[in-house]
């Protein structure tokens, strides 16, 4: 009895999943956008760019600013180059858009990526946030001027925490240029959390943080010296700008939205209007205030000018580290080769008897390689787009299952059940619950 019930439940589940699968892709309308637009965020979920993109996504959805929705897809890694390259290679039909800040420019300048802004159609830039210089509460430096003068009096001794190759690094160099003779010892500390720990532990004299980080971390015993922006921030009016003090450095960074090159200008301007009206919503204003982001939008000519100006500013910077650093690659390869030699020499001169495989049966290498072969075929067919996920999976489980159960008649039924369950079930879970597009 129990067995029958199980089968009924399984059959029902399969039925439901097939139903939801069949329902997809049956709608088609004329005007843009007629399906969801994918936003590629080249960073991990939860980061600054991801958070901001999701805020705009919610604003667009809740206020019905567009007949379709934005779907956020995270493609992190490679200093954001993986996501950027993905968008460059995408079709320029307006259904794939990149959200990335000025790292897109800096990574071209330092040679991480062969592509810069010229490889995209820029739509708009939204939400400005700036950087600030912070020291520890018990630091001898009370003001920005004291700090800068000390950097001039004792060049290359004050440790300034930055993240190499990112706007923090460029701002550090820009600060030096505002006071001839001043030089910092630039220390790369990775992301904001690591930098804070290093500053709190006394391993740095000062560090650059975004304003959002400043407000979150301020209570941990940190003293802000200056904000690197045009005007003081409303919520922290006591912090002077570096410009007022005579060190004109502007760190303002925005989240830019980029379509692949050659996207229809009408689509670009449609999207710019949607983003602009999303920025006007109360929700975005409220959330921006919480994150200490200026809810500003730049588009059109002004944006193009800003990009040209920033590119020429960044390209003046000298980037490489000033300290002789070890060649990690060389040493790792050397270690692998040396140890590999030791291991193989030991194996040759000191052969151990195989300590008797515990198995009485023959080891089935043939079976294992057969299954690996099937796996490779399965991935190949999906990767090349020859078969969609569901059909490929059904075939794969059927063949592999029957192969491994030695084509046992009694088990065929179970294999079929498992195959249907897994393929439609996983497809349902991933596409409907997690919004992850399967091949």
């Amino acid at each position, binding site marked *: 009895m129990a067995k029958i019930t199980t089968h009924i439940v399984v059959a029902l589940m399969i039925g439901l999943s097939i139903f939801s699968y069949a329902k997809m892709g049956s709608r088609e309308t004329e005007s843009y956008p007629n399906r969801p637009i994918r936003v590629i965020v080249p960073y*991990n*979920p*939860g980061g600054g760019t991801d958070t901001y993109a999701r805020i705009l996504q919610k604003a667009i959805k809740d206020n019905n600013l567009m007949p379709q929705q934005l779907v956020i*897809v995270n493609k992190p*890694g*490679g*200093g954001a180059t*993986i996501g950027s390259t993905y968008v460059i290679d995408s079709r320029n039909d307006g259904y794939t858009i990149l959200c990335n800040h000025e790292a897109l420019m800096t990574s071209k300048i*330092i*040679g*991480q*990526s062969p592509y810069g802004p010229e490889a995209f159609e820029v739509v708009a830039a939204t939400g400005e946030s700036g950087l600030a210089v912070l020291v520890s509460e018990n630091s001898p430096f009370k003001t920005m001027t004291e700090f800068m003068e000390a950097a001039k009096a004792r060049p290359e001794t004050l440790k300034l925490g930055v993240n*190499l190759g990112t706007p923090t690094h460029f701002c550090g160099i820009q600060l030096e240029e505002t006071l001839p003779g001043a030089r910092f*010892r630039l220390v*790369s*500390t990775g992301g904001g959390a*690591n930098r804070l*720990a290093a500053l709190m*532990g006394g*391993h740095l004299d000062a560090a650059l943080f975004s304003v959002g980080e400043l407000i979150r971390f301020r209570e941990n015993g940190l003293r802000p010296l200056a904000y690197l922006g045009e005007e003081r921030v409303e919520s922290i009016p006591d912090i002077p700008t570096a410009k007022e003090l005579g060190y004109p450095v502007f760190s303002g960074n925005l989240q830019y939205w980029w379509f692949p090159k050659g996207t229809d200008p009408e689509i670009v301007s449609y999207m710019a209007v949607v983003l602009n009206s999303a920025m006007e919503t109360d929700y975005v204003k409220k959330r921006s205030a919480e994150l200490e982001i200026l809810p500003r939008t730049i588009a059109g000519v002004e944006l193009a000018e800003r990009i040209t100006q920033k590119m020429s500013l960044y390209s003046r910077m000298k*980037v490489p*580290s000033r*300290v*002789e*650093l*070890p060649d*990690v*690659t060389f040493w*790792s*390869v050397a*270690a*692998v080769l040396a*140890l*590999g030699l*030791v*291991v193989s020499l*030991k*194996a040759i001169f000191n052969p151990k008897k195989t300590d008797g495989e515990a*198995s009485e*049966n023959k*080891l*089935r290498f043939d*079976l*294992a390689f057969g*299954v*690996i072969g099937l*796996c490779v075929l399965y*991935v190949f067919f999906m*990767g090349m787009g020859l078969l969609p996920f569901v059909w490929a999976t059904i075939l*794969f*489980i059927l063949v592999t*299952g029957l192969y*491994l*159960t030695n084509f046992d008649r009694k088990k065929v039924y179970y*294999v079929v059940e*498992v195959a249907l369950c897994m393929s439609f079930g996983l497809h349902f*879970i*991933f596409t409907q619950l997690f919004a*992850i597009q399967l*091949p």
Partner: protein
Amino acid sequence: MEAINTASVYIFSLQGLCLVILGTILGITMGAIPGLTGAMLIALTLPLTFNMDPANAFILLISMYVGAVSGGLITATLLRMPGTPASIMTTMDGYPMARDGRPGRALGLGITASFVGGCISWLFLIMLSAPIAQYSTKLGPFDFFSLVLLALVLIASIGGKSMSRSFFSASLGVLVALPGIDTATGNLRLTFGFEELNGGLKLLPVLIGMFAISQIISDIIRIGDKITIIPVKRKRDMLFKWEDWKKNAINLVRSSVIGTGIGILPGIGANIGSVTAYSTARSLATTEDKKKFGKGSETGIVAAEAANNATIGGSLIPLISLGIPGSVIDAILLGGLLIHGLQPGPLLFQQNPEMVYTIMGSMFVANVFMFFFMILSVRYLARLASIPRGLLMPVILVFCIVGSFALSTRMFDVWTMLFFGLLGFAFERFKIPLAPFVIGFILAPIAEENLLMGLMASNGSYLPIVQQPVSLLFVIVSIGLLSIPLHKRFKLFRG
């Protein structure tokens, strides 16, 4: 206080409790099926948690961790096959006792010892994490660099049988961590022109390949093995009586403390903890009791099982307070924290205290649930071992493939995973341990980042490595471990 409240709301909500139950049961199940390990389960579950709330994700993952380390004792006792590597020592006494007609007793001892070990290490976890995290801000980049070196030396010198093979494995792990963007220059290195490699080899495909695919290949090779299970009939003798508590109290506490201590050491985890506690128990036993070891000693089962569960709490301490994983599973959890945008370390306590308490709380709740679930259902769980492999393997393969694809929706990661599966299998055939590879792979970026940061701060001088007291201490311990001859080290840790 507010954070503790938030955390308990997370855990004791309907959803939270369901996740604890789901996670623990899945963990026990995977632990109980020989050939499927906790590391595999957690690596495969991680992609599914991307879209979950981080707190819920970690309730699920921690429950799986607790379940997986515990579930292994079932097959270790009834089949003489450790369900997970953590239960190897349980086979020594659990199986003889079960064969002699007392399977219920053997399982009961193991389950209760697991529960007590988990609870004691949990106490250490809640007491030690915050102070260590607080202290860790004082550790500079060179200290972290030396700590990573120590972790590699520890796993190579204690974890494996052959030191050269372990170091070879670790160095390969380091090499595999290098492709991508050079931390020092921001330029690309070792990508050989593959744009997909710009971000380096991702943690999950490598881990799923190394732990899941390689294991599946080994399982398929042995698909012909017959499995015979000792049936468990009487349930009553599973629960501890007052005399049992009295008799085993010291052993329980001692083994749990050893397990916690080994767990805290970076890099090595449950199996070493259980080996060490087992040999300590044997060397401290009375002559009469000593004879029983290996033939069904109660003390042996208790020591092994208390210690392996105690490593869970122990190894979570460096994970959440320093961001240095205490074992392979913790290394996967570290990846999970980073994916959810959480940086372990002192900041986690300040910025996301509710996450810290959620991790701690779910470990405790999962431990309690594990105890009741195992006591009630252990007789049926044993049958899991007889699920036909032919049905199980294709399902797990599909999970591996979809899981690595879902990470960043590209096929490249799937190919990576398959490649590392074959590599992991080759490792096993050539008796090269997997654990140092994984620890090297995960710790290399931390070591490199800290070394470069230290050098930039010291203007290129390496001297602070031996000038700063903490760093010097780690260096001395590492050199000490390396200079003890191999056979002595075996005596020290394996008895």
